[in-house]
């Protein structure tokens, strides 16, 4: 027990200056300092001007259990790792579009298999490789994922508009790099024309055949 207390005191000695002196660094952490102090007081770690080590042990134990058992706040905090994966997958997909690398796109999709935005990028990549069947497959998968979100209460028309605008942006960027008037470029141009036409119809009527089905 003595060892634990000693270690805790050591931790606190290390922790406190980091939080309270960090305001001298480039990043302004003032608010963070107030926040940590208020949080520590509320959790019983800081009382009457003293840091108490025992609630800290309890807190660490509770947090460890909460993390293992996936309690709600820990899922939310773990969501930040998902955001990192999402950023990595997006960066990979962008690289794949630039280099025309299907393997890279595959890795990105494996990281986030239920993300329709990656399926849309995959469809454009296949169009660019003149493989319409594979492009259609990717779009079907995107449709399927979108419908899953709609079933969970999302507004179909606004989600579909979001998807078409996203597709239009990706196609526009691909067309920008398409210099020759070859078949690849024609495929992309056709896809962009269809997308823009569909978007115009939805803007005008506020309905979509995709949502009527």
């Amino acid at each position, binding site marked *: 027990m003595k060892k634990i207390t000693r*270690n*805790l005191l050591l931790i606190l000695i290390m*922790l406190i200056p980091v939080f309270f002196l960090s305001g001298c660094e480039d990043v302004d*952490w003032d608010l963070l300092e107030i926040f940590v102090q208020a949080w520590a007081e509320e959790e019983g770690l800081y009382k009457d001007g003293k840091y108490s080590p025992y609630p800290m042990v309890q807190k660490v134990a509770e947090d460890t259990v909460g993390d293992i058992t996936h309690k709600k706040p820990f899922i939310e905090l773990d969501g*930040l790792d998902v955001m990192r994966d999402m950023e990595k997958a997006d960066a990979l997909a962008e690289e794949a579009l630039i280099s025309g690398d299907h393997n890279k796109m595959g890795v990105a999709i494996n990281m986030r298999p239920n993300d329709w935005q990656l399926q849309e990028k995959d469809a454009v990549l296949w169009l660019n490789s003149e493989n319409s069947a594979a492009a259609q497959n990717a779009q079907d998968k995107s449709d399927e994922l979108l419908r899953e979100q709609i079933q*969970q209460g999302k507004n179909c028309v606004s989600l579909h508009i979001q998807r078409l605008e996203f597709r239009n942006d990706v196609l526009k960027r691909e067309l920008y790099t398409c210099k020759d008037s070859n078949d690849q470029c024609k495929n992309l141009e056709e896809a962009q024309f269809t997308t823009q036409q569909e978007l115009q119809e939805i803007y005008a009527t506020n309905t979509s055949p995709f949502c009527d089905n």
Partner: protein
Amino acid sequence: MSETVQNPTPPKKKRGWCFCAGCLLIPVVSILCLVSVYFLGPPLANWLGIFGPEAKEVYEAAPDLAASESLTNTFSELGIPGVRVYVIPIKDQPTQGAFIILDASAGYVGMDPLDTEDDMLLLILQDITHRNRTENLRLAHVTVDYRDEFGETATAFTADQELVEEYADGLITQRGFFGQIKIDLIGTMQYLGIDGLLEEIQE
């Protein structure tokens, strides 16, 4: 005179190799049991549905681009650079989670780089609350990630949207708000380079 015959102590039986093996076997089996509980327990419990789902599953859908852009505007309109916001639908729920990345490696220099008043946080949360209500973003929580100059997470916290709105509406004080949010204690400690000590406490 009666002679008292002392019973000679029975000769100690020699303990064979079986006994030694038994001695060794018990701790080895115990360790194996603990290791398997540690590694197999959580996945098994997940599979059985005892624990909640993993974050990867909960936030598997694509981000809501319109909502993400709207909340990113909260920061850009206040002149705070280096902030990215992702609003992600929560699986099997009609709500969404907002993830705010305050990234020093992307130019974030603090909530309030020009003066030291703390009103900026309140302004941000009031704006998020306003957008949530008027644009029907259906936010369930706001989770904030502070990343350092190298893109490493320094600390993170999460707050229910209800709590955010209570603070934004002036129903609770800043201290009350900070006191009720959930900070990533273990992650923060790990960032500070005290993994070994933390492990010792957890033992």
